[in-house]
């Protein structure tokens, strides 16, 4: 009985690890069903909200009656009247929503967005009408009539679905809004109105025909706007332990930004993220699968490498190898190569499996191609090609740890110690990188810390983050060291490091006595 239990428990553990990694897409899909990862917030229906607002208005009216009118201005009365007006605007908005069939407030398209702006216009009109007509300026009069006209247009939108009209309306409003701002109005107008143009280009129906996820489109373009703003201002935000700081952009960062903007716009226009939910979930599941899978394989390969030589010496099976008519360096090479192939092989297989699973669970349109800038143009790498390369590049740091464990095994001849030390350093590196990122230090000597040089992936695939959903992107930004040595430096450094480890192991294995 215990024998069966022993065998089964090992099998179960193995399965949990491997299948857990492969089945992450399923887990995410199921979680989404239950807890809504994609952030479809639970919203009350418009009718419920309306009831609340109606009750609110009633309360205000009651209180107004109680206060009564005695002719003189009363601070409380003014407050109440303002409040009542706001509530009435809100009521109007809700009524229009319900009348247009948008009781469910989770639907997002330009009509809903337009209806949402009703209270603003009403408010503006109310403010402007407080000014006697002979004291109003020409611009104010113009603005007033614009607002009234806009309200008419808004009322028409539910029927005519005229997104173009909405875009031009929005742009006009922009001009009015910006007129009171200090600074480069033209530039701001440029940026913000181009966003609207892009929206129209990407989806002329404004989300009403259901082909494009309007909400996601808007989010993407908001992001682009943010980037453009940052680029224009020449500064970017940096988050570290001292909070938020503005840091000037280096020329390299500026180029990076403009490349990113080009890619994002390209994505929007080509309609890459058509189905938002799926790609967010796919991105999330990919992120976890990659991390988890890499971790499992890292542990496995460190154990294998750490015991490669020391265990053979301990059990004595190395005798057969030494007696064999093969020079020791050949045995050494064979061991390294077999470890390497196990590492790469299992990474590729695991990666293939969970991406396949992701494909099955989320559908093919969740597999975004990798986009990058080549000679000023946006170019694409097909998804599976990118994944393959990504896995290989990402395994370079694993290889270093493999060699480290192997070296310890050869030098110390103690499996437990070799495995413990290399595993500990593997687990610790993540923390070091984070620590440096948090401290925000940028010093020359840091270049020589091994851990900062492992991230070749970010240098070779600088636009990979674009494939991630926003929340993961934030996480990534927080954990990726803000300061990393350049690609050339890192590559050379890694090569030197790998050579050193190989040399030490080689020397120890081929020349030392085996007692």
């Amino acid at each position: 009985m215990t024998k069966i239990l022993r065998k089964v428990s090992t099998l179960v553990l193995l399965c949990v690890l491997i299948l857990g990694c492969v089945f992450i897409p399923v887990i995410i899909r199921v979680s989404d069903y239950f807890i809504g990862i994609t952030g479809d917030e639970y919203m009350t229906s418009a009718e419920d909200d309306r009831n609340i607002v109606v009750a609110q208005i009633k309360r205000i009216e009651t209180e107004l009656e109680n206060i009564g009118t005695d002719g003189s201005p009363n601070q409380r009365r003014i407050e109440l009247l303002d409040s009542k007006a706001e509530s009435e605007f809100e009521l109007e908005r809700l009524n229009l929503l319900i009348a247009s069939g948008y009781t469910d407030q989770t639907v997002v398209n330009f009509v809903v967005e337009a209806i949402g702006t009703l209270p603003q216009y009403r408010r503006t009109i109310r403010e402007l009408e407080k000014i006697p007509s002979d004291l109003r300026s020409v611009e104010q009069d113009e603005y007033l009539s614009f607002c009234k006209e806009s309200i008419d247009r808004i009322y028409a939108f539910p029927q005519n679905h005229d997104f173009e009209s909405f875009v031009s309306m929005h742009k006009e409003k922009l001009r009015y809004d910006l007129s009171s701002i200090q600074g480069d109005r033209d530039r701001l107008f440029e940026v913000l109105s181009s966003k609207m143009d892009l929206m129209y280009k990407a989806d002329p129906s404004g989300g009403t025909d259901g082909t494009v996820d309007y909400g996601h489109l808007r989010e993407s373009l908001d992001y682009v706007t943010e980037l453009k703003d940052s680029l224009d201002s020449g500064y970017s935000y940096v988050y570290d332990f001292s909070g938020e700081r503005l840091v000037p952009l280096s020329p390299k960062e500026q180029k990076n930004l403009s490349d990113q903007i080009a890619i994002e716009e390209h994505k929007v226009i080509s309609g890459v993220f058509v189905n938002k939910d799926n790609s967010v979930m796919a991105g999330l599941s990919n992120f976890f699968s990659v991390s988890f899978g890499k971790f499992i394989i890292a542990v496995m390969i460190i154990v294998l490498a750490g015991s490669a030589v020391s265990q053979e010496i301990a059990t004595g099976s190395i005798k057969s190898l030494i007696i064999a008519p093969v020079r020791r360096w050949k045995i050494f090479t064979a061991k390294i190569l077999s470890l390497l192939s196990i590492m790469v092989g299992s990474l590729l297989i695991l990666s293939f499996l969970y991406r396949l699973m992701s494909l099955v669970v989320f559908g093919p349109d969740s597999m975004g191609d990798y986009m990058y800038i080549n000679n000023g143009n946006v170019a694409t790498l097909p998804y599976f090609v990118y994944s393959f390369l990504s896995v290989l590049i990402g395994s370079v740091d694993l290889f270093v740890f493999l060699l480290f464990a192997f070296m310890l095994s050869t030098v110390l001849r103690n499996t437990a110690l070799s495995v413990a030390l290399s595993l500990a350093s593997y687990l610790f590196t993540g923390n070091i990188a984070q620590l440096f990122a948090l401290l925000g230090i940028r010093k020359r000597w840091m270049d020589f810390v091994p851990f900062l040089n492992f991230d070749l992936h970010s240098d070779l695939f600088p636009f990979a983050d674009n494939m991630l959903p926003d929340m993961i992107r934030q996480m990534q930004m927080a954990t990726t060291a803000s300061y990393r040595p350049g690609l050339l430096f890192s590559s050379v450094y890694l090569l030197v490091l790998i050579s050193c480890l190989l040399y030490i192991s080689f020397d120890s294995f081929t020349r030392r006595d085996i007692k």
Partner: protein
Amino acid sequence: MSEEKVAMRIQNATKAFGKNIAVNHVSFDLHAGEVFGFLGPNGAGKSTLIKMIMGFLSMDEGSIEINGFDRKKEYERAMSGLGGIVENPEMYRDFSGITNLTMYARIHENVPRERIDEVIRTVGMQDRAKDKVKKYSLGMKQRIGLAQAIVHKPAVLVLDEPTNGLDPVGIKDLRDILRKLAHEQGVAVMVSSHILSEMQMMCDRVGIINKGRLLDIKLVDELKSLAVGQYKFVVSSPKTAIESLGSAFDGKISDVTEESFGICAEKTEVPGIIRTLTASGVDIFAVSRTEGTLEDAYMQITGGGITVA
């Protein structure tokens, strides 16, 4: 003896661990078709020498030639003529015996599948070859280890303390296989041990090693007869008998009891002793000869006593 082919030649093998010289300029030749025994107390340097031959330890000085190939210059060709077991053979436990053999055979060139089966039969493991090594007893592991050592038909077979942990049946089987390999197949077998009785039965020639030095090499028979015959006389009065012999056999008399005494003498001297005793009026009840043992020779050569290095 000098016409025999030299399978392995060791010259000036030296190895020191710090200040301790474990193997001190050892030289000897190993002939094809013989079983050569290396005898010595614990710590004499037997294992160290064997490990040097097999490649575990580096040689500070000296050279080894196997099958005519110098090991330093043509390592792989030299080593392909060598097979060996150091202490207990260890194999990969989760694989079967035959899988281990097959894997090992792949390292060597030209070992056909039939040879593997043949070798399994030679060591008598045909019934258990497919079981996993972790299920083997020590004797079985020894057999498979031996199979592994000979699978590539080496010219030289080196075994370090091969009888360690074996039961008498196992020891006998090993002895038979080794003698067969040497005398029928011409393999040069070198065995190290500290168990004299075993060496006596197994070997043709014996080299005695102590404190890192090779003291002497002799044929087993020579050694036995070197320990000149011990004769035991059962007589009526040992005291009278000894007195009558006078000073001729001073120092050669031992094991005196009330009924008997032992005397170290050559075969030709025996009739003379009998006559002397009879003339002195001593009654002789029995005369028997005890074979000189290797132990005697060993003690003689090493100067007696176990030395702990």
